[in-house]
C-alpha cells in the first residue's frame, strides 16, 4: 500500500517536470480547457439557451462530438486484436498507447454527455442507489453502462500493466488477459450501443436504418487508427520512446480495409434512400442537396466525402507506404469522418422534424468553446498520461532501478 502511494507521488511529481515545450503545450491546453470551462459555467447558469439547439434540432454539436469520439475510443481495439489475438509483437509495444487514448477519449465522451444535459446537477438520478436507472429498456442507460464499463476496463488494464512495469514485476496473466479479451468485445459494444441510440428511434427514418451501426464501426476503425498513426509519430519524434514502423503499417492496412467497407456501406445507404424516393428520403436530401431552400449541410458533407475519398485512394495505393502520404491520408480521414459523423449523422436526423418543419442548426460560439474546451482537456489528459507512462515504459521510472524485471513481490 505504501509502495502504491509512493508510486502515485512519483507520478504527481513527474507530471510537472519537463522541457519548456512540455510546459508550453500543457499550458496552452490548460488555457483552452479553462476557456471551455468558462463557457460551460455560462451555459450552466443560463441554460441551453446559450447553444444553437432548438426544440426542432434538440441535439447538436455535443452529441455529434460524443458520437464521433465513441468511435475513436473503440479504435484502440484495433491495436489490441493484433497484439493479443494475432500475437503481433511490435503491436505489444504500442498497445498501451491505444488503451490510454481510449481512456482519454471516453472521458471526453462522458464530458460531452454531461455538458449536453439540461440538468447536470441531477446527474445522480442515473446512478442507482440515488437515482432510478431505466435499464434495460432505455438504450441510453445501456450506453452509460458500456461507456463507463469500457473506461473502467481500460483503466484497470493500463493501470495494472503500468504498476507492474514500475515495480519491475512481470504482470500476472490472469489479472489482465481476461480483461483484455473482455475489452475487445466491449469496444465493439460501445459502438454498437451508441449506434443503437439512433437506430432505435422509429420516428426518425434517417436513423432507423440497420446500416448505421456497421457503418459507424467501419468509419471508426478508420478514424481511430488514423489518430493513432499520427500520435505514434509524435511520440517517437518528441519522446525517448521508440516506436517502429511495423505498428504504423499494420494500422495502415486496417484503415484501408475499413475505409473500403465504409464507402461500400455509404453506397448501400445512398442507393436505398435515393433510388426508391420514399418520403423518408427528405433527411438525406437535406444533407446532400438541401431541402426547401435549406442547404446548410450540403458543403460540409461533400467536403467530408471528398476528403474521405482522397484518403481512401491514398490508403489503397502503394504511395501511402511513405509516411508522408500516409500522414496526409490519416489527416484527411480523421477530419473527413469527423465532419461526416459530426454534421452528417446527428443533425439530419432532426431535419426535417417529424412534422416536416425544416429548421437548421449551427452551434453557437459558446457551444463551440465548450467543444474545443473538451477536446483540449482530452489532449491534456492524454499528454499527461504519456508524460507519466513513457518513463515507466522505457524503464527510467522504477521502484527499484537496480533489479529490472526480477522481483517476485
Amino acid at each position, binding site marked *: 500500500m505504501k509502495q502504491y502511494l*509512493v508510486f502515485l507521488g512519483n507520478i504527481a*511529481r513527474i507530471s*510537472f517536470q519537463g522541457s519548456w515545450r512540455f510546459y508550453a503545450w500543457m499550458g496552452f491546453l*490548460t488555457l483552452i480547457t*479553462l476557456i471551455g*470551462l*468558462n463557457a460551460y*459555467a*455560462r451555459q*450552466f*447558469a*443560463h*441554460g*441551453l439557451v446559450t*447553444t444553437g439547439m*432548438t*426544440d*426542432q434540432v*434538440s*441535439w447538436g454539436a455535443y452529441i455529434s462530438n460524443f458520437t464521433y469520439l465513441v468511435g475513436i475510443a473503440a479504435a484502440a481495439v484495433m491495436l489490441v486484436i493484433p497484439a493479443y489475438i494475432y500475437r503481433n509483437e511490435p503491436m*505489444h509495444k504500442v498497445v498501451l498507447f491505444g488503451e490510454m487514448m481510449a481512456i482519454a477519449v471516453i472521458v471526453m465522451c462522458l464530458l460531452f454527455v454531461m455538458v*449536453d*444535459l*439540461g*440538468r447536470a*446537477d*441531477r446527474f445522480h*438520478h*442515473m446512478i442507482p442507489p440515488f437515482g*432510478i*436507472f*431505466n435499464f434495460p429498456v*432505455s438504450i*441510453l*442507460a445501456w450506453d*452509460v453502462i458500456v461507456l463507463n464499463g469500457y473506461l473502467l476496463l481500460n483503466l484497470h488494464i493500463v493501470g495494472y500493466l503500468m504498476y*507492474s512495469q514500475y515495480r519491475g514485476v512481470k504482470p500476472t496473466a490472469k489479472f489482465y488477459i481476461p480483461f483484455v479479451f473482455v475489452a475487445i468485445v466491449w469496444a465493439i459494444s460501445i459502438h454498437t450501443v451508441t449506434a443503437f*441510440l439512433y437506430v*432505435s*428511434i*422509429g*420516428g*426518425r427514418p434517417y436513423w432507423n436504418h440497420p446500416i448505421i451501426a456497421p457503418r459507424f464501426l467501419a468509419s471508426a476503425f478508420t478514424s481511430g487508427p488514423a489518430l493513432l498513426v499520427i500520435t505514434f509519430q509524435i511520440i517517437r519524434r518528441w519522446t*525517448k*520512446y*521508440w516506436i517502429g514502423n511495423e505498428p504504423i503499417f499494420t494500422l495502415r492496412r486496417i484503415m484501408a480495409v475499413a475505409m473500403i467497407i465504409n464507402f461500400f456501406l455509404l453506397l448501400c445507404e445512398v442507393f436505398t434512400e435515393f433510388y426508391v424516393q420514399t418520403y423518408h428520403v*427528405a433527411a438525406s436530401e437535406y444533407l446532400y442537396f438541401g431541402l426547401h431552400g435549406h442547404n446548410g449541410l450540403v458543403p460540409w458533407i461533400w467536403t467530408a466525402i471528398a476528403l474521405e475519398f482522397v484518403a481512401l485512394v491514398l490508403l489503397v495505393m502503394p504511395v501511402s507506404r511513405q509516411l508522408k502520404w500516409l500522414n496526409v491520408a490519416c489527416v484527411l480521414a480523421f477530419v473527413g469522418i469527423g465532419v461526416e459523423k459530426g454534421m452528417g449523422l446527428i443533425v439530419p*436526423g432532426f431535419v426535417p422534424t*417529424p*412534422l*416536416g*418543419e425544416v429548421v437548421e442548426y449551427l452551434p453557437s460560439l459558446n457551444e463551440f468553446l465548450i467543444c474545443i474546451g473538451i477536446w483540449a482537456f482530452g489532449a491534456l489528459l492524454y499528454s499527461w498520461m504519456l508524460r507519466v507512462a513513457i518513463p515507466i*515504459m*522505457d*524503464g*527510467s*521510472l522504477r521502484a*527499484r*532501478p537496480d533489479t*529490472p524485471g526480477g522481483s517476485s513481490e
Partner: protein
Amino acid sequence: MDSSQKPPESRTVQEAARAMDRRTFLKNTGLGAVGFLGFAAALSPLLELEKGDLSLDDFLQKHYRELSGDELEKILRELERRTARDFGVEPTISDARPVPGAEFVYALNLSRCVGCRRCAHACVKENNQSRTSDQDLEGSFIRVLELENGSMNLENSEHYYDPELVPQEGKYYMPVQCHQCRNAPCVKACPVQATWTQDDGITVVDYNWCIGCRYCMAACPYYARRFNFSKPKLEPQQINPNQAYLGNRIRPKGVVEKCTYCLQRTREGEYPACMEVCPTGARVFGNITDPDSEVAQIIKDKRIYVLKEEVGTQPRFYYFFDK
C-alpha cells in the same frame, strides 16, 4: 512491455524526491496558484445563477412515484411559495391523480378543423408556457399543419401559414400534439424514468426528476415535446394559477415538458383547454373505457386515421373524417 532501445535513464524514488527542491516547490506553488485563479475565473459565470436555481432540497428530492403523501404535500407548498417569489403569483398546485377507471382518448375531426389555431394559443395560456408576447406560439404543445388537398405527406406541410382567413381553398388542416402513445417511444428512451404513462393513459414528466438529456425529444415521432432552454418568462397576468405538479406548473429551466391533455383540468372532469376553445367542434375528448362516450362511438363507427401508425406507437389520439 519491452524496454526501449535507448538506454533507460534510471531514476529512483529518492532521486526523484531530491529533485523536488525548494525552487521547484516554489515554481509548483506558483503554477498551482495561477491554475487555481484561472479555474476560479473560469467558473465565475456561476455567479449569475439566480437565487433558488440550485437547492439542497431539490438535489435530494426523490422521484414523484417514491414520494410519500406528506413529502409531496411539502413539496407542493414549497413550489407555490417559490412561484410566488419568482413570478409574483401564488398559484394552487395540486397533485391531480388519475381518475380511477378512466382512460383518456382524443379524437380530431379532420373534416371539421379549419386551422384557426385557437387550440394552440389556448394551450400556451393554459399551460403557463414561457412567452415573449401574447402572439408567441413557440412553446405551444400543438402544431397546426396546413396540408394540400390530396396529400398527407407531412414533409410538405406548412407550419407558418398566415392568411387573412381560414380555411384556405384547396387546403386542409391537421393539429398535432402529444398522442399519449400506448407504446410510447419517449418513455422507453428516458434513462431515468422521469417520464412515464399513468393509469389514465397520460404520459407525464416529473419536472423535478428530468435530467434534460432530450433523448425523449429525439424519440418522439410527433414533435410533441419541448425543452426549457432557459427559465420561463411569464408576466403575473399571464400565469394560470390553477396548476398541477405533473401538469402545467411553471417548469424549471433545463427540463423537458409535454402535453398532458391538461391533466389539471381533465382529472377534475373538465375538458382540455384546446377542446374547450375549438370553435368547430373538431375536437372530441373522452373516456374510452365508457362504451357510450363520444370517443368510443367514433372509434366504433368512423373512418379513423392514426398518424404514423407504422411506427407502432399505438396512440391514444385519433384523426377521423365525416365524409
